[in-house]
């Protein structure tokens, strides 16, 4: 405090002097004078430190997330055996006499939805990317890309509502046994949600394949399709795969669509027409209900959240490795 007051005074005095004797000083002296100002020096020294502190917030956030999840999960494992949690095939936390915490049904629900989403999004996403990168004119691209951005910007709650009130009734007309809550409808809608991500990241990967390679193949008499499938696609494969893995990670973490349209009955099977529950939907179910603070159910959302976090972390790491390791350099 004292030093900053002092430097402020010094600055005032210095400025006064310069103003008075400006004509008599040479430029070099002026520079020397101004670079000697203490306050300025202090600011120059403090700013990087302040900015580093600000930058460390993101690091603290990560530590906060990992720390919270680990601490609360450890408390959860005081009540529930870790082997029961990892290998149990029944998730029945709301029982009065017996509570069962086997995560596999929730994982199965998540994987069912993610699997359907991938089946929808990968063919459509990559086909759109090929169209945009290899066939579309600049004008078409300028129309379609913003629309894809809009699609990517639709809030997931809106998609969830769409799945529940439009896609499910529509599917029920074709599949009579389909329940109101099922894995199929949210799966398809999650697929639509991640489609723009796959399309735009894959298109970026394809567009970065140099034109000389395309022209080389065209000069050899290839059709555009052959260039796209045999030259551009293999060259951009690492980028495309990374985009798919990132999209899978998004699908695993998607919450509102599955909460609204997926149901809340976790089952460890492969049936997509019945009500399911994903890891994310369970967290939402418990936190929107009145699970008392400190109960096993309360801590279970952290254990489930931790599992979810590990899944997405693994996927993101995988995407990173794929795009690093298999990238073709031109």
């Amino acid at each position, binding site marked *: 405090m004292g030093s900053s007051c002092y430097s402020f005074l010094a600055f005032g005095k210095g400025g006064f002097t310069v103003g008075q004797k400006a004509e008599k000083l040479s430029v070099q002296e002026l520079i020397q004078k101004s670079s000697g100002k203490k306050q*300025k020096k202090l*600011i*120059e020294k403090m*700013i*990087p430190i*302040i*900015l580093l502190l*600000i*930058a*460390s*917030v*993101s690091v603290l956030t*990560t530590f*906060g*997330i990992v720390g*919270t*999840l680990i601490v609360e999960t450890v408390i959860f494992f005081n009540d529930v055996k870790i082997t029961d949690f990892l290998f149990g095939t029944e998730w029945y936390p709301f029982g009065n006499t017996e509570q069962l915490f086997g995560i596999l049904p929730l994982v199965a629900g998540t994987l069912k939805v993610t699997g359907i989403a991938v089946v929808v999004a990968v*063919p459509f996403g990559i*086909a*759109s990317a*090929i*169209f945009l990168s290899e066939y579309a004119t600049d004008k078409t691209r300028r129309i379609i890309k913003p*629309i*894809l951005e*809009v*699609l990517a*910007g*639709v*809030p997931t*709650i*809106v*998609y969830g*509502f*769409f799945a529940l*009130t*439009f896609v499910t009734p529509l599917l029920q007309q074709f599949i009579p046994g389909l329940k109101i809550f099922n894995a199929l409808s949210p799966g398809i809608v999650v697929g*639509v949600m991640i*489609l723009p991500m796959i*399309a735009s990241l894959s298109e970026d990967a394809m567009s970065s394949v140099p034109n000389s390679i395309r022209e080389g193949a065209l000069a050899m008499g290839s*059709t*555009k*399709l052959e260039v796209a499938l045999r030259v551009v696609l293999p060259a951009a494969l690492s980028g495309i795969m990374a985009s798919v893995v*990132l999209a899978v*990670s998004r699908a695993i*973490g*998607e*919450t509102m669509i599955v*909460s*609204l349209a997926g149901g809340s009955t976790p089952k460890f099977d492969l049936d997509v027409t019945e009500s399911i529950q994903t890891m*994310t939907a369970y*967290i939402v179910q418990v*936190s*929107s209900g009145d699970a008392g603070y400190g109960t096993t159910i309360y801590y279970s959302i*952290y254990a489930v*959240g931790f599992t979810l*976090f590990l899944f*997405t*972390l693994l*996927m993101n790491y995988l995407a*990173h490795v794929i795009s690093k390791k298999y990238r073709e350099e031109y």
Partner: protein
Amino acid sequence: MRYVNHEAVVKKMNKRLMVNGIFKTIFFAATLFALLVLGVLFYRIISQGVSYLTPEFFQNFGSRVPEKAGIKAALIGSIWLMCVVAPVSIILGVGTAIYLEEYATKNKLNDFIRMNISNLAGVPSVVFGLLGLTIFVRALALGNSILAAGFTMSLLILPVIIVGAQEAIRAVPQDVREASYGMGATKWQTIINIVLPSAIPGILTGAILALSRAVGETAPLVVIGIPVIVHFLPDNLLSQFTALPMQIYDWAKRPQEAFQYVASAGILVLMGFLLIMNSIAIFIRNKFSKRY
């Protein structure tokens, strides 16, 4: 003797061209699929919701009766939420971006910060909700207030704002910085007088797009326990509140069919909110962005 069978070549070539044409159509149709879904989605929501979009809808609080249900508390709550998220996330995001682009040298700590940011971007929003619940709601005892929700949302969109701001700062050419140094300016003077003014349109565009993500995000709000039925307007940052996506979630869950229409009307308000934010972002980008 002819080595090349002209007819066979023509036939083969025509076949290959035909396959090319078929696939072009397929790829185009696949692209149209996304547009079709978007069209159906908008059509459904507009046709269902527009009749409920009356002036009373904006003046009423939530209600058990669909005809009396309104969005006032949620709309005002979302605006309050933005008033917390915008300053917090922009200050943290831009500060981090300036540090990484202008000050950070290549060392282990800075590499770790960079890697950490890209990892944070991939963490599901529901996990951020768990962080907010533990740290802001319980440990700091902020309760399910605007402040707790605002901090959680700020951390959620922080990586997006950082990456956007980094790109904007990187786009300012090195020559301009050198010119400023050449005039005797210090590093911080250069940043504050030269780099930031040119980067601000890009930073703001990215920030508004990130904020519009925060407006539509539901999962963290559910996890930190934001109530849905609120019959008062918040008056300070520690008030309880509800937000647009929470209100829509509550309506969408209700079994009565009439609430579907109310939910659609709510979605229209939310989409209108997002549209306004995105228009501002596009306006800023077109009006103020400089080309070097």
